[in-house]
């Protein structure tokens, strides 16, 4: 897969933002308008990272980063839980991984000659990446919480 997504080719519409809006609207919020582009890159305290890789002729990674508390809220929204209901580690890991999986699958559809999508992984540690390998970053504000989607080339 070539991760050279030509953002400019989408006539001013950011396709990654469009994917994020669709995912949050359909899966998480049930209505549009709760995820917006953020003006600046956030500092993530207690960060969590979820990612999928696309493995093909060349490979790339779709990485979703947020804070643990936000991951808990995403899990509550996805699972239809009450706002104060405790989220198990298994639930938030699975929920955050599935969000990354759906975003990654739709990003994969944007690139020519895509390869195979790996199963999602979720960790506290940011997955290792090479300097200069980031090709895109989208900072999002979801209900006042920071969510970052980034795309990376893999060796």
């Amino acid at each position, binding site marked *: 897969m070539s991760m050279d997504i030509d953002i400019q080719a989408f006539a001013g519409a950011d396709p990654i933002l469009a994917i994020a809006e669709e995912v949050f609207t359909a899966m998480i919020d049930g209505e549009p308008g709760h995820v917006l582009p953020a003006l600046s890159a956030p500092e993530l305290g207690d960060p969590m990272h979820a990612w999928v890789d696309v493995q093909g002729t060349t490979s790339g990674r779709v990485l979703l980063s947020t804070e643990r508390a936000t991951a808990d809220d995403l*899990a509550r929204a*996805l699972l239809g839980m009450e706002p104060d209901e405790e989220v198990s580690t298994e639930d938030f890991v*699975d929920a955050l991984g*599935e969000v990354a999986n759906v975003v990654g699958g*739709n990003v994969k559809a944007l690139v020519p000659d895509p390869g195979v*999508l790996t*199963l999602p992984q979720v960790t506290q540690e940011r997955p290792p990446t090479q300097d200069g390998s980031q090709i895109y970053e989208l900072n999002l504000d979801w209900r006042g919480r920071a969510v970052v989607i980034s795309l990376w080339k893999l060796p």
Partner: protein
Amino acid sequence: MRALVIDDSRTMRRIVSRLLGSLGFETVEAADGREALDVLEGGTHIDLACIDWNMPVMNGLEFVTAVRNNRDWRDMTLMMVTTESEQSQIVRALAAGAHEYLIKPFTPDAVREKLQLLGLVELEESA
């Protein structure tokens, strides 16, 4: 009507099961194609299988192929529910024997519409 929800994500299994439950389905869940085949081989009658593509152990396409190779399960309706949205993948799944294809993310209305097309949910009467 009984549906088998096959997805390695328990989050997605719960979402799909909840949606199907609201449409009147009883649901059974499996975390991969092999687990799903175990359910079928155990004799549980399934009317509809909702199948993720990318799963460990046995993926969705392999499951569809296995089901289509067994005459005992020929009446089962198979619907892929997956992030794989390239046209070539859709064609592969339909050629293997899937009846419908739903791309994640989906809305409850999209699920209902697909099931209406398949004749598994009654059409809503217009107001």
